[in-house]
C-alpha cells in the first residue's frame, strides 16, 4: 500500500461526494437534527446503491470486503456532508467491535443485517463518569438461564436511542465482554439526550436486567475493545477531515464573494493567511488519516500510537477550520441560519468524545514509552 489513493478510490470519493450532496443537503441535515432521527430511505439507498454499510465487511458476512482505507473515504465524505445517520455508530463502532472479536458466530449474528442496510447498531462503552478508559467500565453482565442479563447505565452512547441493536461492553464473570441487546428489549430504557452537536444523537441507556447475548468469549473484549477504540478514532479522524475541508472551502468561497472597503475580503492578507493555515491543517490531517486508515487496515503495531496522535491532530484541525470559518464569515457566521455552527459543534463534540487532545497526547506519550 502506498500513501496515494488509487483511481478506483478516487472514483469512490467522487460518487460519494455526489451522493451525499444530493441526499444530505443543509435542509435535510436541519430537518433530521430537529427531529432527532435519520432518513431510513437514504440509509437503504446507501446500502443498495453504493453498498456503503458492507464496504469493509468481509464477503462471508455479506459485505464486499474492502479495507479500512476505503472505509475512511466514506467516513470523510459523510462527515463533509454532516450526514445525520447512524453510520459511524453502526459501522465504525458496532460492526468494527464485532469484527475485532474475530468470532464467526458473533459476526454472523450482526454483520449481514448491517451490510444489507436492514440493521443499525451502536457500541455502548462509557458510563456516567464520562471516562473513556475501558478499565472504568462497571456495567454488570450476570449469567442467567443460559444467557445473560445486564445491569447498569451507559452514557454518551452515540445514536443509542435510534439504532436497532446495541453492542454493550460489560463486566461478565470472565472479564470484559461484549453483548448484543435489541434496542427495544424489555429492561432497556433509552433517553435521547439534547446534544451539543445536534447532528449526532447521544443516549443514556439504562439496563435493568435486559436479556443479552454474549458475543465471542467472555473476557474477549479486554483485548478487542482497545483495538476497536483505536480504529473508531481513525474513522472519526477521517470524518473530521471531511468536515475540516468543507469548513475551509466554505470560508474561502465566501471571502471571494464578500466585499468590504471596496475589495473582496479574500484579498486581505489576514484572510489569506488564515486560509493558508487551514489548508496546512487539512493537508497534514489528510496524509495522517490516510496513514492511519492503512495502519487500521493492517492492524499495524503502531496503530495505538497513530490513533492517539490522530485524535489530537484531526480534532485540532477540524476545530481550527470550523472556528475560523465563522470568523471569516463575520456576522452571518454566528447566526443559526448559517451552517457554519453545525461544523463548529460537530468539531467540538468530536474533539471531546473518546477523550480530548490533552488526554490523547498523554496516551501517546505513554504508548511511545516516554
Amino acid at each position, binding site marked *: 500500500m502506498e500513501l496515494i489513493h488509487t483511481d478506483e478510490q478516487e472514483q469512490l470519493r467522487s460518487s460519494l461526494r455526489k451522493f451525499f450532496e444530493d441526499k444530505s443537503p443543509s435542509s435535510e441535515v436541519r430537518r433530521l437534527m*430537529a427531529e432527532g432521527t435519520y432518513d431510513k430511505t437514504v440509509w437503504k439507498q446507501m446500502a443498495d446503491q453504493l453498498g456503503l454499510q458492507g464496504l469493509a465487511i468481509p464477503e462471508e458476512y455479506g459485505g464486499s470486503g474492502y479495507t479500512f482505507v476505503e472505509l475512511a473515504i466514506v467516513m470523510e465524505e459523510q462527515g463533509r456532508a454532516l450526514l445525520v445517520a447512524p453510520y459511524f455508530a453502526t459501522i465504525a463502532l458496532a460492526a468494527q467491535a464485532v469484527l475485532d472479536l474475530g468470532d464467526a458466530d458473533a459476526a454472523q449474528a450482526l454483520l449481514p443485517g448491517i451490510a444489507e442496510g436492514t440493521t443499525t447498531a451502536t457500541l455502548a462503552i462509557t458510563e456516567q463518569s464520562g*471516562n473513556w478508559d475501558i478499565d472504568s467500565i462497571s456495567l454488570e453482565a450476570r449469567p442467567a438461564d443460559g444467557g445473560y442479563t445486564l445491569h447498569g447505565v451507559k452514557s454518551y452512547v452515540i445514536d443509542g436511542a435510534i439504532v436497532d441493536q446495541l453492542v454493550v461492553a460489560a463486566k461478565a464473570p470472565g472479564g470484559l465482554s461484549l453483548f448484543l441487546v435489541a434496542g427495544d428489549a424489555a429492561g432497556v430504557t433509552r433517553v435521547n439526550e*439534547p446534544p*451539543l452537536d445536534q447532528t449526532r444523537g*447521544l443516549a443514556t441507556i439504562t439496563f435493568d436486567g435486559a436479556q443479552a447475548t454474549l458475543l465471542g468469549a467472555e473476557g474477549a473484549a479486554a483485548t478487542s475493545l482497545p483495538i476497536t477504540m483505536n480504529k473508531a478514532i481513525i474513522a472519526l479522524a477521517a470524518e473530521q477531515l471531511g468536515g475540516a475541508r468543507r469548513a475551509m472551502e466554505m470560508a474561502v468561497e465566501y471571502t471571494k464573494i464578500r466585499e468590504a472597503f471596496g475589495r473582496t475580503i479574500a484579498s*486581505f492578507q489576514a484572510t489569506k493567511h488564515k486560509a493558508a493555515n487551514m489548508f496546512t491543517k487539512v493537508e497534514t490531517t489528510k496524509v495522517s488519516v490516510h496513514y492511519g486508515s492503512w495502519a487500521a487496515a493492517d492492524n499495524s503495531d503502531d496503530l495505538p500510537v497513530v490513533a492517539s496522535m490522530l485524535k489530537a491532530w484531526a480534532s485540532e484541525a477540524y476545530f481550527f477550520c470550523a472556528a475560523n470559518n465563522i*470568523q471569516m464569515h463575520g456576522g452571518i457566521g454566528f447566526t*443559526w441560519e448559517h451552517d457554519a455552527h453545525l461544523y463548529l459543534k460537530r468539531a467540538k463534540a468530536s474533539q*471531546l468524545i473518546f477523550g480530548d487532545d490533552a488526554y490523547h497526547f498523554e496516551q501517546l506519550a505513554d504508548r511511545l514509552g516516554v
Partner: protein
Amino acid sequence: MELDLGPEANKFRQEIRTWIADNAPEGLADLTDWNASSFGSIDESFDNALQSPQYAEWSDRLLKAGMICASWPKEYGGQDWDAIQNTIFAEEAFRAGVPTVNRGFGESMVGPSVMVNGSQEQKDHFLPRIISGQDVYCQGFSEPDHGSDLASVSTRGIIDGDEIVITGQKVWTSGYFRANMIFILVRTDTDAPKHRGISYVLLPFTAENGVDKRPLRMISGAAEFGHEYFDGSRAPIFNIIGGINNGWKVAMTTLGHERSGSATIASLRYEKQFWSLVDLARKHGRDKDPVVRQQLAWAYSHVQVIRYQGLRILAQIAAGKEPGPEASATKLFWSDYEQRLGEIAVGIEGAEALIRAESTGPHEREPGDYIPNFWQNIFLFSRAHTIYSGTNEIQRNIISERVLGMPKEPSAARG
C-alpha cells in the same frame, strides 16, 4: 489590593455600602446570580428574578433615591455621578450580590444624545421616560449587507405632515425583545451626500406601528439580536432629534459617549467566572491535573490583566486624562480571552459538555430550542465577540494604523 481613590471616594463608598444594606429587599440577592454574565445566555432564574416583587421594590427604591441614570446631570434627573462614583456603586452592588438597574441604550446613548442635541421640550418628554423605565430603547443602526459602514443607511424616512414615515430594515438589533422604542437612523434625503441626508428618530417599536420584529437566532440558540422590517412605521416629527438630515452628527454624539464605570466591573465578573471554572475543575476532579492547572493559571493571568486595565482607565478618568492608546487593544484582548476560556471550560467538562441543559422554563421557548449550559453558552456565544463591534482583524488594523503609524492597505476606500 484595593484601589485607594482618596478620602472623598472612600466616604462615598461607605455611604453606598450602608445605603444598599439598608434598602436591598430581603432575599433579593438570593433570587439569581445577578452578577453572572448574561449576555447571550438563556437563564431562566434571571428572567424570573426580574419579574419578582423584590426586584420591583428594589427598582422603585433606586428610582426614588435617584440611583437610576445617576451619572446624568441633576437637571435631567440624575445625580451627576462621575466615573469613580459609578464604579463604586457598581462594585458595591456586585459585592452585595444585588443588581444595579440600568436603562441600557436609553441611559447610555439616547439620553446623552437628547441632552446634547434635543430641544427643551424633547428633553422634558423623553428623559424622564427613560429613567422610569417606561421607554426601553434598542438601537437601529445596522442594516443588512452594510457591515461596519454605518453611514450607508438605506432605510427611508419620508416626512408626511407632522409625522415621519419609515420603511426599511434593520438588523443586529441587540435587546430588541425588551424594547418598546428604537433610536433609528433613516435616510431622509436621498440626493444629499452619504453623511448628510440621515435623520435620527425615536420611533415606537411595536407591531401596531408597522414593525415586524424577527429574532435573529445565534449559534448559541439565543435570539439576542433582532432583524426588523419597518413598513410605514410612524413617529411625530417631534421625535426627530437634532433636526431633519442632521442625524449623522447626533449618532456620532451617541457613539462618542464614554461608557465609563464598567471598567472595573468587567474584571469582577471575570474573576467570579474564574472561580466558577476552578469549581468546575474540582467537581470533575481535574483541579490537580497539571495541564488543567496551566490553563487555570493562564485564565487567571488574563483576568488580572483585565483588572489592571480597568484600574488604569479609572485612574485616568479620575485624573482627567484621556485613555491612552492601550485602550484600543482591550476589545481584542477580552474577546480572544473569552473564546479560549469557553474552550478550556468545555474541555474540563469533557463528556458532560456533549449534552446540553434541559429546558425548564417558558421564556421564548419553542420546539427545536437549543439551550446550552453555562459554559457551553460561553463557548458558543464567544465566537461572536471577535466579530461584532468591528472584527478583531479590524481592531488590529486600527492599532497598527492609528497607534503604530503603519500605512493603510493600498485600496483603502474606507467607509
